[in-house]
Structures are given as C-alpha cells and as structure tokens.
C-alpha cells in the first residue's frame, strides 16, 4: 500500500476536487431554483450527444465529446420546456420522458458504436455511465479547472443578479432585470458543470454531485455567499476524498465512491449543523416545550396565590400532585423551577412562588395578555408568530406595537381576563 500518491493520482485528485468545487457552486443555484432533478435529466440527456460526437469525430477527445454532450443535454432541457409549454403533460413526467428516452437513445448509439468501431478506440464510452477517473490526463484537468474558474468569475461578477433571479424571479422581472437571460445563463452554468462531470462520476450519479454539496452547505448557513463558499469547499472535499478512497482501496469506478462520501458529508450536516441540523432542532424544540411547561406552572401558581405575592400561609395547593394528562411533565417543570430558584415547597405540601418567580409569572401573564391583544388587533399577523413565546414577546414585537397593545388592554381590560 503506497500512502504517497503518485503523479497520476495527483492529477486525478486535482481534477475531481476542481470538479466538486465547480459542481458545488453551480449546485447551489440549481437547488435554490428547485432544479435539482433537472441536473439529472441533463446528465442523462447528454449521453446520446456524447456518443454521436465520438462517432463523428472518430476518437476519444474530451472537449469534443463534452461539447456533444452539452448540445444534446441542452436539447433535452429544451424538450422538457417544450413538453411543459405545449402539452398537458406536467413537468415531472416531462423530465422522466426526456431522461429515459435520451438515455435509451444513448445506449442504442453506444452499442452500435461498439459493434462498428475497432476495439482499440471504443474503450471509454461505457465508462461514462458510471464514471471513470483513472483515465484523466493533465489536459482534462486544465479543462475542468478552466471551466470551474470561468464559473467562479461569472458568479462573482453577476452575484447580485443571480441572487435576485434565484430567490425572486418575479421581482427581478418587475425591476427590469433581463430575468430570462439570467435564467438561461444559470441553466447553462449548471449544464456545463454537469457535462464536465460526466467522465468522472458518470451519467447516473452526476445529479448527486450537483446537489449533495449544496444541500449539505445549506444546513450551515442562511446566507447565499457563505453557502456558495461552503458548497464549493465541500464539493472539493468530496471529490478529493472519494478519489483518494477509491485509489487507496482500489475501488472502482470512482463515481459511486465519491457520491457515497458526499452522502456521508450530507448526513453529518443533516444531523449536527448548528441551527438547522436535526439534533439542534430537536434540542431547541425540547427546550421550547420545557419553557412552555414552566410558564404553565408559574401561571397556575400565580392564579392560586392571588394578589398576595409572599403569602406563605396559603392553603396547600396540590398543583403538582394532580394526576392526569401532563402530570409528569408538570412535575418535571416544577422541579426545574425549584432548582432555578423561582418556586419553593411549603411545609405540609404544596408550593409557593418566590419573589423572582412572582416576577417571572407576572411577565408570563403580561406576555399572554399581549399575545391575545395582538391576535385581536392584527389577526392577519397571527401565522407569522405561530410559535410566539409569552416571555419573549417584547423581543419579537416592535416597542411601538407593544405600547399600542397595552393601550388596548388598558382601555378594555375586563374582556381579556382569561
């Protein structure tokens, strides 16, 4: 086992990393514009063009083959658009039709070429289905690197425009941007990236190469710029690691290995990303429910104690001991409140609010009233504040609106008492 990569491996490594970075960049836009599966269609539709180019040119020349694939891939996208525009067939079926028919045609052509062309030069056509990185030579890497660079320059130069058409095409059009041209440019960018990826990861798996880095990057940030950089880095990492792994353990073809590395990267992001990750979201949700429980307990105690804040000699209130739905959660909330110093147990059973608890309970009560007032006054805003927390209402609503609501409450107080 040779741990120092050879020159050939280095070439391949550079190629797949650059490819991953480029695909990561283009993939961000493809994903944001809901075109993730268009990349799949493009990759499949490229096969017949690739075969035809091979047939007509007569030898394996990467630029010519890729140009052929690009042309037929774009023809495929146009066919999808035309089917959607002129017939009643919906887009999903149109993608399926174009994808399968073009791929079938590619297989037919590829078999015919294999039957006719002498065996020496036909090698390599089959590898486009599943990808083969081993055959990569330095000129191929220059080509991939050049195209990735052009993509990068294009994205930097037209960053604002691309952002606008990706997020709000209708607004872009209304503002007078050449939305259609930008749209086509972005699609072309995706198409070129998909096509140059065909030799390395193959027709079937190129879609994964396009969306995996972008989908993984999306978990870590809400900003497009950061997402692009992350996606490019993840893409490069996936390409590089996949190539190394497949070289190290002599696994072939490299395409599936690269994709599986990407799947691992995606899964890790899905799980552990700070805010959008599954673990973080589950934790946040638990904390939210706990806070709600605590608020309920505080409100219950406040009601039981009435307006006498420090009355120790109140009759024992058996709030926590009540059986029935949510009893265990209430008990847990009560325990947390005791640990935090909001509530203390009373001799002879029952619980009482401490001064800090009283304060917090007042805050909760005020928040709840504000919330009700908000719903009454601005019912149309309600869905925007679906998870409104009674304690943080002051942070969420502008001070002006809070003042307005308080005025409402003061003028018609009796109505809102629960």
């Amino acid at each position, binding site marked *: 086992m040779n741990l120092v990569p050879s020159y050939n491996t280095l070439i391949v490594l550079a190629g797949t990393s650059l490819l991953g970075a480029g695909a990561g960049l283009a993939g961000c836009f493809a994903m944001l514009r809901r075109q993730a599966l268009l990349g799949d269609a493009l990759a499949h539709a490229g096969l017949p063009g690739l075969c035809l180019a091979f047939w007509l040119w007569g030898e394996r020349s990467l630029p010519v083959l890729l140009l052929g694939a690009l042309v037929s891939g774009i023809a495929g996208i146009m066919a999808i658009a035309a089917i959607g525009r*002129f*017939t009643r067939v919906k887009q999903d079926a*149109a*993608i399926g039709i174009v994808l399968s028919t073009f791929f079938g045609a590619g297989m037919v052509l590829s078999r015919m070429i294999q039957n006719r062309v002498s065996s020496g030069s036909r090698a390599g056509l089959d590898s486009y289905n599943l990808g083969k990185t081993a055959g990569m030579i330095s000129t191929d890497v220059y080509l991939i690197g050049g195209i990735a660079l052009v993509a990068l320059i294009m994205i930097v130069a037209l960053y604002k425009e691309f952002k606008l058409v990706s997020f709000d095409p209708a607004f872009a059009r209304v503002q007078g941007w050449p939305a259609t041209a930008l749209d086509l440019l972005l699609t072309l960018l995706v198409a070129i990236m998909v096509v140059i990826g065909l030799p390395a990861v193959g027709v079937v798996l190129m879609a994964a190469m396009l969306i995996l880095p972008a989908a993984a990057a999306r978990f870590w940030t809400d900003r497009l710029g950061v997402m692009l950089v992350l996606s490019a880095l993840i893409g490069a990492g996936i390409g590089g690691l996949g190539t190394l792994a497949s070289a190290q353990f002599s696994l072939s073809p490299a395409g599936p290995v690269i994709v599986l590395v990407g799947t691992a990267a995606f899964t890790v992001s899905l799980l552990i990303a700070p805010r959008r990750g599954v673990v973080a979201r589950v934790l946040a949700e638990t904390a939210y429910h706990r806070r709600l429980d605590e608020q309920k307990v505080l409100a219950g105690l406040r009601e039981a104690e009435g307006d006498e804040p420090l009355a120790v000699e109140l009759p024992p209130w058996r709030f926590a001991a009540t059986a029935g739905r949510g009893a265990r959660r209430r008990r847990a909330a009560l325990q947390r409140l005791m640990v935090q110093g909001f509530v203390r147990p009373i001799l002879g059973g029952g619980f009482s609010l401490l001064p800090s608890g009283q304060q917090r309970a007042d805050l909760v009560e005020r928040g709840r009233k504000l919330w009700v007032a908000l719903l009454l006054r601005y019912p149309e805003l309600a869905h925007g504040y679906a998870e409104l927390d009674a304690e943080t209402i002051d942070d969420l609503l502008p001070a002006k609106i809070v003042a307005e609501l308080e005025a409402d409450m003061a003028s018609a107080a009796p109505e809102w008492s629960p």
Partner: protein
Amino acid sequence: MNALVQLLTEHRLALWTIAAGSLCSVSCALLGCYLVLRRMSLLGDAISHAVLPGIVIAFLLQGRASLPAFIAAVVVGMLTAYGTESLTALGRVPEDTSMGLIYTSLFALGVFLLTNLARNVDLDPGCVLYGAIELVPLDRQEVWGLEIPRAVVSLGLTAVATLAFVLLLWKELKIISFDPALAQALALRAGLVHYLLMGMIAWVTVASFEAVGSILVIAMLIVPPATAQLLTDRLDRMLLWSVIVGILSSILGYILAARLDTTVAGMMAVVAGCQFTLAALVAPRHGLLGQFVARFLLSLRIVSEDLAAMLYRAEELARRSTSAPLTWARCARALGGGPAAWLSALALRRRGKMQFGPGFRLQLTDAGRESARSLVRAHRLWEAFLVEYFGLPLDHLHAPAERVEHYIGPQLQDRLAAALEHADTDPHGRVIPSAGETPSPPAP
C-alpha cells in the same frame, strides 16, 4: 396451421423476448398511469434507482433472484418514498432535492456493492443496469410441461398481480389520483394506498430489471402513461392506451434493435419516446396539431360570422339608401384580407349561407341571413347592455361587442333583451333585430 407452428418455432427466441418485454411494459404501464396522474413520476424514477442495493444484497445472500430479493427490494422501494417525505419534513430540504439525494445515494450504494463486492457472484453489472432481455429465452424452466423462460414466468406473475392490484383498488386509486382531499374526507386510508402503490412499483421494478435494466424501467413507467394521457380523458381508456403503447414499444423496439444490431432495452425506450412525440403532435384533442386545427376552425368560424354580419348590415343600409353594392374586394379588405378571408367566404358558401351574384357580388341566402341576424342582434343587445348597466360612452361599445357577439347564443340574447325591457334600438340608433322576425331580402 403447420405454417403457423413452423413460424412460431422459427422465431421462438424472438417471440419469447417480445413476450418478456410486453409483460414488463404491461405492469409498468398500468402502475405508471397513477404516477403520472398524481404528478409523482420522479418518485417512480427514484424507486427504480433505489431498489438496486436491495437487489444486490439479495443476490449476495441468495445467489439468484428469489422471494427474499423481491421482499428486500420492495422494502427499499417503500423506504425511498418514506425517506423522501421524512427528509423533507425533518431536514427541511426541498422535496425535489431530498428525492434526488436519496435515490442517487442508494443507487451509488448499489453500484458500489455491485462493482466491488459482487465480483464473485454471478451478477453482471451491465445486466442489472441496462438489462439483458436478449438472454431471457436462454434460461428456461418447465411449467406444466412447457419450456418457458424463467423471466417470462416471473414477469407474467407480476403482470397478473399488477392487474389484480389495479382492479381491486380501482376506486381507491382513482380517488387518490384525482381528488386526494376527497380521499381524506372519505377516510380512505390514502396513505396506505400510497405505500401499497409504491411497494407495487418497487416489485415491478425488481421483476423488470432483468428485462430492461434498472435505469430504463422509468421509460416504461412514465412514457406510455404520458402518451396515453394525451390520447384520452378517461382513466380506463388511459390504462388501456398505456398498455397498448407499452406493448408496441416492446415489439417495435425488438424488431428495430434486431435490425440495427443494438440494445433492445434502449430501443424500447426510444420507440416509446417516439410514440410520445407522435402523440404530442397528432393526438386529436391534446396534440399540437389537434389544438392548431381547433384554433384554426374557431378563427374561421369567427371570420365567416363576421363576413355574414357585414353582408347583413350592407343589406340594412341598402334598404334605407342607395349605396354601392358590396363587392368581394371590399369585403376581403374589411376582413383583413389574406387566406382567412377567402376560406371564410368559401366556408359560408359551402354551408349554403351565401352565394356569389353577378360581378362577384356577395348575397346572403335565407339561412345565412337568419344566422347573421342573430349575430347582429347579439352585437347590438350587448352594446345596449353596456350603456344601460355600465354607462360606457358610445365610442367604447363596438370593440367589446365585436368580440363577445360570437359567444352570445339565442337564450342569452333573450335574457339580455328582457334585461333591457325589449328595447328596439341600440345606443347608436340602429334597430335591434327581433328574435322571430322573418328576414326579407332587400328590394332589388
């Protein structure tokens, strides 16, 4: 009879291959209809890719396609549908992205296992991915004393099961395809039917991978139903057409592939695609040609109605004052000229509503005068209505009335007349022809 038997024995290999292809397309075409109608075509694509690891693992364990292989693949297929949904919900990933992620990842896993671990097993990657329908007749087993290829048996069973599935759940499938909300309201267990459908699709995919390979199953799942959708508006006929298109694809695909010496599976996809293109072009109602013809006939009707109305108005004028007779040249100019004007004149004449008088003068026949009067009545009623109810100024009346007159039938005319309290004249002071008036030709 002997000739037939001889023919059958001569082409036995070809016939078995075609039979395998047809049985496979029947199952796919039936289930695909529901995918296309529910706009879930790509879920079919996803499942057909995703069952690959199931197939490979079953092969590694069992060495042959068998019941465990089917079960494994069906489970993986249902997991794909479930995984797509839960990834969308759990990770807030857009649905298309999560679908793309899941099936490409599973497919990559399948290829990885296939190319790296399955080297020692009797499983050729090419066969699984692209199918080897040419080899189907070679692997036979005996059923009731007949030598039948194994794949034909399993595909036949699959086709029967699919047919039974569709017939048994006919109502449920129909409702979840066309009105999911109603399915929910009727407590139809739409979710259960959905997952049963996905399971069937996974089954069919597994059964088909030997015939057409796991990549091209999608061609058989989507293309025939989409073609059928262009040919009919009824579900039962759509299923029927879909099956016909599927079977035709297998037959023609085999013949063409044999001629060109190339892959049958690929050719089947290409033939199916060609049939879709043909249907998209020439289907009676939903094809491009059909739509073009319908639009052309509509514009022809409108232009010829305009021509008749023009002649009617000329007759009206002629009754009051002596004006120059309306020659064809003037009419054609007023209609915008070109072939449309000519065709409209010919159409009117062919229907016996108009005749050519001496010197190319156009004359309405009685029938023509009757329909033209109805049109002019609609026009003037609408003008009066616009003034009465919307208070439009006089110079804003003609254009809308000119458009709408072609769509106001006798009943609506009567309602309009009633709403206007049977006014005699339109806002321009012209007489509104009454409904039952017998037309009289102008004095010669």
